[in-house]
């Protein structure tokens, strides 16, 4: 850990890389297994033989080849996009006093903060929040009909909480209120 740590960074594409790597391991192992059995027994094992004959019987112009080719194009394009696009940040930066200090807050934690503060507003029944980049979207369910007033109240509360949390810059708050009739209640 001699290098300076950077907490707020672009995604490292760990999950797709791990999936592709695991796929390579499985494919390689199966291939080696089949070929070794072929060397021992003198004939390809059943599943390998069936796969081989299926591949041998493929012909140009068939629908199957076209389908596989289209899937390969889509998958390859997606992998190239994953490799080339920088990807979104997953942390917000928090203001710190010192220049050699860094503090970050994960997007999921900011959503949790928004939910916790929105839930404290009177009349709120259920809250879901998503924090992504410069916008925090809050969805509120309420049994009350005065949705406009509630929307203002929730927006105010969440906005105040976000600016008090020391985020730099403060994300925009978008609140959607939905009227939910809870059967048993008058």
């Amino acid at each position, binding site marked *: *850990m*001699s290098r300076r*740590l*950077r*907490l707020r*960074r*672009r*995604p*490292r*594409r*760990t999950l797709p890389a791990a999936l*592709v*790597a*695991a796929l*390579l391991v*499985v*494919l*390689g*192992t199966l*291939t*080696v297994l*089949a*070929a070794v059995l072929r*060397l021992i027994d003198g004939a390809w094992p059943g599943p390998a033989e069936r796969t081989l004959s299926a591949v*041998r*019987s*493929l*012909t*140009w*112009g068939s629908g199957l*080849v*076209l389908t596989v*080719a*289209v899937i*390969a*194009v*889509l*998958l*390859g*394009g997606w*992998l*190239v996009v994953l*490799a080339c696009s920088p990807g979104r940040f997953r942390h917000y930066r*928090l*203001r710190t*006093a*010192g220049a*050699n*200090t*860094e*503090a*970050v*807050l994960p997007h999921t*934690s900011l959503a*949790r*903060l928004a939910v*916790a503060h929105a839930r404290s507003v009177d009349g709120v029944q259920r809250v879901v929040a998503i924090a992504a980049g410069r916008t925090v979207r809050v969805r509120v369910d309420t049994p009350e009909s005065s949705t406009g007033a509630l929307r203002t109240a929730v927006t105010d509360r969440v906005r105040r909480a976000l600016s*008090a*949390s*020391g985020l730099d810059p403060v994300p925009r708050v978008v609140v959607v209120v939905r009227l939910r009739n809870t059967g048993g209640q008058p």
Partner: protein
Amino acid sequence: MSRSLTNRFGLGLLGLGLLSAGLVSVCVTAVTRGAAQLLPSYGTLAGVTSQLPTAGAPLLPADRLGTLGGALVVVVAGLLLAALGLVWLISQIPRHSPALPFRFHDDVSSGITSLSPKVLARMVDRDVLAHPGVTAARTVLGGSTRSPHVLLRLTAYELTDLTQLVDDLERTVMTDLSTALERPIEHLSMEISLGADRPVVKDVAVRDHTAATEREPQPVPG
């Protein structure tokens, strides 16, 4: 090479391979299905189109997989593929390079004073946990006595005053640790996650002198 760069390079290489193979197959299929008439039948293109396979031609030329040599080639190729995948997969596991012990001595002839960063890190953990709202803390120290780095991962209660917490941590951790190490901290990184767990009030074990019993710390009501 960093993990991000390795991953992006590997994914990009594989993606380009798949993309080009798929595109070529789609083009050849289109030609075999009658798109050849759309192409001009003169110049170099005519030569190319005449080389292309016709509809119904087998995708793969006659293979030699039935032979002994073919199987051996397949074994080697499979081993390479599996080894490559395994190395790539293992490189995804996060690793912390072992932190060096902090060495405080200048001259070995007068004695050696070294301190394991882990010991110091546990002490910082305890300090951080004493802050209001903090429910979990994990400190990693790195660098050397000359240029110490601190990585602080902590979880706080979701309604905690974050500005206050960051401010306090920055002040106390930097001050206490640089006092302990007799050096200014070169870099402090904090990752603060929020959780629904309410903090337990610490150090409130009430000692009742008449009954001489200790009570367990109680969670904060509300």
